[in-house]
């Protein structure tokens, strides 16, 4: 399915609604160039999952883990959001080295991977929600395509 969003607000709102369908174990692969809105999309997902903490770019630390407290969650059994950024990585093995396999597909966890196209080996044979993001013609416009699920 393809969508066009006029501004950041619309992207955030879409992602927030999108996350409401999650049941746990989802792996979201975000693909798009610098500035395409991958971190913004993740912020929306986090909000939709009931995370109050601020979601910052994980480029430097590569992986950030956000805990979801049962009281803030919307009745689902998801306890963690794992936010990964493969921007600086050259392959899937590197992500395995920092412990991604402990989280990927865990029934109480949603994993979001920015620059997922850099770690395709890791995602092969897994059920993945692929989201392609592109800059639009106008400054804040973004084109988003959801593939899978």
């Amino acid at each position: 399915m393809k969508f066009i969003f006029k501004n950041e607000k619309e992207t955030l709102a879409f992602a927030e609604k999108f996350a409401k369908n999650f049941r746990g174990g989802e792996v979201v692969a975000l693909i798009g160039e610098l500035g395409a809105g991958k971190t913004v999309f993740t912020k929306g997902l986090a909000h939709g999952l009931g995370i109050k903490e601020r979601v910052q770019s994980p480029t430097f630390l590569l992986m950030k883990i956000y805990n979801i407290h049962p009281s803030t969650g919307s009745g689902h059994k998801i306890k963690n959001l794992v936010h990964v950024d493969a921007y600086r990585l050259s392959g899937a093995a590197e992500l395995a080295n920092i412990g991604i396999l402990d989280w990927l597909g865990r029934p109480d966890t949603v994993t979001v991977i920015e620059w997922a196209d850099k770690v395709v080996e890791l995602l092969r044979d897994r059920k993945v929600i692929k989201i392609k993001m592109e800059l639009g013609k106008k400054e804040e416009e973004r084109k988003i395509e959801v593939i899978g699920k």
Partner: protein
Amino acid sequence: MKILGIETSCDETSAAVVLSDGRNFEVKSNIVSSQIKIHAKYGGVVPEVAARIHVEAILPVVEAALGKDGAKKIDAVAVAAGPGLITSLLVGNEVARILSYLWKKPLIGVNHMEAHIYANWLLNQKINFPVLCLVVSGGHTELILMRGHGKYEVIGETRDDAAGECFDKTAKILGLGYPGGPAIAAEAAKFTVQSSWFIEKLPRPMMATPDFDFSFSGLKTAVLYAARDLKNKYKMEEIIPAMAYEIQEAIVDVLIAKTMKAAKKYNVKTVMLAGGVSANKRLRERFVEAMKKELPGVEWSVPPFEYCTDNAAMVAAAGYFHAAKKDFTSWQKLKVDPNWEL
């Protein structure tokens, strides 16, 4: 008290011996083995490569820091236990735990960002609280209010990308090297406003908002659009110095404006810089100018260049204040925390 500091959060392996009485800090040794050249070809730190190089470097670096005195007069071991890359952190922390066990010396787990702040104490100046510190690095952009040693209140932070990350990513868009901060600064230095035929204007995100938060993701996107449009009109190499200059000005403008505003609001006695980005010359210049002009009665501090980037002397300095309060962690219990927030 003599403290051995160990630092392996990212891509520098470092050990230092610092002697202090709480007022004066004497850096006996500060050995830093940098991997930056190795990682530059990958455009960033490769975790597994970093860990392996830390393993190779850590013992010689610790030995060099201890010197001929060896372990004899060390009173405590301080190690940066996070935030950072887990694979890198583990190397320094395992070594620190083993030394603590073998030497029967107390162990201190220091927060890496706290260590950056304490680099300012290595200048041996009296620092009066409350202190406001702008902590800027590849992974952090925060305004931290300190009402005393070890008391941190984050009053503002980035909502998306860190300032150092913005340097890295915009440098990448312009086709400059890694790390982006020094690359942008070097290009910017070639530019003079007066003699230029080309000037690019970029936004200053969130500069005028009433809070103390930052946002650099929009600046990155603005550079992306500008580069995309300008590529068709000019040769990129001709306009890169002007772009680099404007990127640096935009980042520095916002950092300085928010820091000054926060310093006024909280009525602090001292304002400081800390973190890798505080090695940026333009930021240092503008900070000192702004302090003199806007807050003439307030003291300020900027760590020396060698203590801005990752080093173990700053870890030992922060460790001292924990040791003075007997705030130790046993070697059995010390754990690294890659996401540790102050």
